[in-house]
């Protein structure tokens, strides 16, 4: 926690991350009170520490993108509720950090993404994340729309993995 001094501020990274997010314009005003950490479910069961993550971001320390910690957030928004400042939205910051992490080629562990293979397949073939929905299935032309919307998205690559898995299963 004390690896940084007051002269280490470097907000360029922060500005890149939050330039278009009104909801996070005040991260720079974080007073490190720690309320977010105290009420955080992820902090109770992992090394996830919002205060440390914000400190890194405000120092321009991009090693945060390689940390597996950012993938442990529950996105429960509890921190938003207990934060004494307005316009600090940690879950949204985490989503942006994860996105940047993906872009820089780090991203989550392969095994983590594997859990999404089936869900991605169902979403892109049926429009739901369960095997069969309760009630009628989404009409085929509507499913096509979802596919089109998701063009070039990572979900498509995860879906591709399901096709490769199916092929392997058939061959064996």
């Amino acid at each position, binding site marked *: 926690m004390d690896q940084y001094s007051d002269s280490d501020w470097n907000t360029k990274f922060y500005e890149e991350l939050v330039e*278009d*997010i*009104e*909801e996070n314009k005040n991260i720079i005003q974080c007073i490190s009170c720690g309320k977010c950490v105290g009420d955080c*479910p*992820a902090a*109770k*069961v*992992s090394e996830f520490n919002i205060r440390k993550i914000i400190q890194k971001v405000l120092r321009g320390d991009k090693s945060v993108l390689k940390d597996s910690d950012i*993938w*442990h*957030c*529950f*996105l*429960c*928004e*509890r921190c*938003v*509720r207990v934060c004494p400042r307005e316009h600090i939205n940690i879950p949204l910051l985490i*989503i942006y950090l*994860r*996105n940047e992490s*993906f872009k820089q080629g780090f991203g*989550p562990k392969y095994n*983590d*993404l594997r*859990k*999404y293979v089936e*869900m*991605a397949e169902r*979403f892109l073939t049926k*429009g*739901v*994340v*369960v*095997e*069969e*929905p*309760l*009630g*009628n299935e*989404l*009409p085929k*032309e*509507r*499913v*096509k*729309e*979802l596919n*089109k*919307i*998701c063009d070039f*998205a*990572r*979900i498509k690559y*995860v879906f591709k993995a399901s096709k490769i898995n199916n092929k392997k299963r058939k061959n064996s």
Partner: protein
Amino acid sequence: MSFSNLALDINEIKERYPEEPLSFFKDKKMCLFKACLEKYFPGVRYGMLDLSNELDLNVSTCESQSCCSGTFFQRNLITRAQFAAINERNVYELNHQADIVLFSCNGCYNSLMRGRDFLRIEEVRYKTEEILNGLEDKFPTNGDKYRILENPSVRFLHDLDFIYLIRNEIIDILKYELNDLKVAVHYGCHYLNLSRDKKNVDEYVRDKSKLEDLVSLFGGTPVDYQERESCCGWGASQVLINQKEALKITYNKLKSAENVGADFLLMPCPTCLYTLSKPEYREKIQKWYGEKLDIPTIHLNELMAILLGCEQERCITLRRTTPRLQEIFESITQD
């Protein structure tokens, strides 16, 4: 362009219809948002459907509505604009069909609000429009193309807020009561911590007690417990990815509710219900944390169905193997 949230203004209804808020809904076209996880708990949808029918409300589901896609956005598998486009497609379809959409799932409710919020960012809005323009298929009913609706008339309402709003009118049609059962309540993070649907700070930060109030009204005893406000353990799919850690949160919650002698745990979200009741998770909790926890879990809509006197098969038992649920059903429905 302004993109005000689409949450139904409950306070306005309370002011206009202080005695009979239900009358506001009588001439409205209502639609149940289909949450994916209702597949495992059909009573969540049937409960609301049966309640609405009992109240003579005009309720349907929307055939063209897709999954909210929140789970993919939370793991960065789709972009903000793609997420917003999926949402706007749903908003467009729902707006065509209904005046009010009811949500049984905190996650879906949050997603629809979140997607709409993103449109305030010019870059996201531009890309979302571009994506929607790229869809060749026409909307089947009115022949128009999908587009961002700046001021749609449709409004969103969480099932818990709806049931709470009309609670005094529901009480007359219930066949059973809770017979002093002790009930621990779980709101779920995306209900408890959500600010997107609130119009003022007070509504957001003050203690939430709607579930407790309903339990008391239905003849039960709400019990407080230490982990009342904690997460169910789902944690945006953490239970799938870092299972041992996430199930520690689930364990703490269930254990805490059992410790105060709760007969069951009541919640307004099928995703929380899935996490807190899945037999596989209960077994893993026993294996990893050394305790067999058998507290039953019930969604608010399922409870409404039980209290209305719906058939057991329809309210709770389809595909359910939750421990001791039968016991709770019997103690409520005994004559």
